[in-house]
């Protein structure tokens, strides 16, 4: 008998339970505190170093100052270009999978490919991007080569979120459209595409987060120059994004104050992205219920 009538337990059982309970509490607290520490440390160390001069100028050896405006602009350009290319591709692929593909083997192959893509480390993307876009396609080290590399990286993301939102479009809507005499394309345009808006938005937010955080894939494709220009000049010339600039300032130049300022900016952006992702998710969940 493990338990007597008084409800007393064997000692070893009691120890096991207490141990596991303490372990769970300790680990959860550790994870929460770790996150809190990361945020607090970066913000406290970084925010005092953010100044208007840092944000609004480019680096200059003559006046011995460091400015990160070019890096901010480059990040913006890369995010925009990547999204413009990846969204049509990802949405198209998702529509093919849910609306057109009939052969289960092909669907499985495509899904396996997409899972493989999301498992490949960014350094390999960087290498292949360098070989294919920069050298083979003759784009040299440039923002556009970096963007195209990121397109491949983010494609599975956009595809998956779009696919999930398409699954929530009721089959009867599609049949209704066909019943009214719509062709397949018209049905997709009027029924399917409006239904995938939330998936596309979620995919966009996730992709922006990933692009902001990416560095290894951009180091050899987009380079680490701090030149400044409008979007068209910038796309064909090399340039560092904020993350790449952080790496260069911290590791190669030992400018930790600037590095922390950039880290704080990235941290704030990460917070905003996470917050908006949760918000968007809640909003769409509510709307779907109505």
């Amino acid at each position: 008998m493990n338990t007597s009538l008084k409800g007393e337990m064997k000692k070893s059982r009691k120890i096991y339970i207490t141990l596991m309970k303490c372990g769970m509490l300790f680990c959860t607290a550790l994870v929460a505190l770790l996150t809190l520490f990361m945020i607090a440390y970066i913000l406290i160390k970084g925010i005092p170093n953010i100044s208007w001069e840092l944000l609004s100028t480019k680096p200059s050896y003559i006046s011995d100052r460091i400015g990160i405006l070019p890096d901010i602009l480059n990040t913006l350009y890369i995010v925009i270009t990547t999204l413009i290319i990846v969204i049509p591709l990802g949405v198209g692929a998702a529509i093919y999978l849910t609306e057109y593909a009939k052969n289960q083997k092909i669907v499985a192959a495509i899904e396996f490919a997409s899972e493989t893509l999301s498992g490949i480390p960014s350094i390999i993307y960087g290498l292949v991007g360098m070989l294919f876009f920069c050298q083979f396609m003759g784009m040299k080290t440039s923002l556009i080569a970096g963007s195209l590399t990121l397109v491949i990286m983010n494609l599975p993301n956009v595809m998956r979120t779009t696919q999930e939102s398409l699954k929530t479009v009721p089959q009867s809507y599609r049949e209704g459209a066909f019943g009214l005499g719509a062709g397949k394309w018209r049905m997709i345009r009027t029924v399917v595409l409006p239904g995938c808006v939330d998936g596309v938005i979620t995919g966009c937010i996730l992709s922006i987060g990933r692009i902001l955080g990416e560095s290894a894939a951009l180091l050899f494709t987009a380079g680490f120059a701090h030149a400044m220009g409008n979007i068209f000049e910038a796309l064909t010339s090399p340039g560092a994004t904020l993350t790449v600039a952080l790496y260069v300032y911290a590791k190669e130049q030992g400018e930790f104050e600037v590095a922390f300022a950039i880290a704080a900016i990235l941290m704030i952006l990460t917070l905003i992205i996470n917050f908006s992702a949760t918000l968007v998710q809640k909003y769409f969940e509510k709307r779907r219920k109505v």
Partner: protein
Amino acid sequence: MKKKRLFENIVHGVFLILGHITVGFVLLITIYLIVSGIPAIKEIGLVNFLFGTQWAPTKAEPQYGILPFILTSVYGTAGAILIGVPIGFMTAVYLSKVANKKVRAVVENAVNLLAGIPSVVYGLVGMLILVPTIKKIFDVPDGASLFAAIIVLAVMILPSIIKVSITSLDAVPKEYEDASLALGATPTETYFKVSVPAAKSGIAAAVVLGVGRAIGETMAVMMVSGNVANMPSLFESVRFLTTAVSSEMAYSSGLQQQALFSIALVLFLFIMLINVTLNFFLKKERK
């Protein structure tokens, strides 16, 4: 009518191409890595390349052995898993089974945030806090070491482990737990002896995912591991497969650069192996 059918066919064709684009990208990456990775292996010799213990491409008699990198990656990943998995696993059980809604929401948000922090930021914090601390506590000449990399990697794989484990723990049928409770087991015993075994393929998938993350991480590791091509040792400066590629890519040429492509090919093979394992566990989980 004919015109309409033609139009529909064109649309179908466009979507067909878009649908297969991921397959195309995977092929592109595979082919590029194989084509650019094979020549150097041929020239150096497979055995010399994989099992050589010396990496010295700039010497008068260049050496291209990548065993130090392979072992460092394996040890580093194993270390990160050893530390990260228990912590992540316990947290997942707590959040999925014990925690109330509010606590769960807060910690889950924290975990999502942890996943969103760029790897260079982890590298920066590691460089300025972890490395000096290791130097002080263990009294070693330089804190930038395999040990520092293991700690950083352990933190970085936490979110993937927690998230995937929670999903599979949530999916355990409530009846299992009720039955165990009715038989006199306490809640804690039920979670660990009934729920966890029921979710084991999902948890295995979480571990494999963590392995993939750890082995592929580049920038954070580059900033804390010292980056010298030693055979791995806990408190010495080491170089991983990933950092071997990225640290010399910028200035290398000729056979040295080709050898870097070969390293990437080796890394890619590791990753493919991990992906296949991951898929296996995920399929099992779905069943």
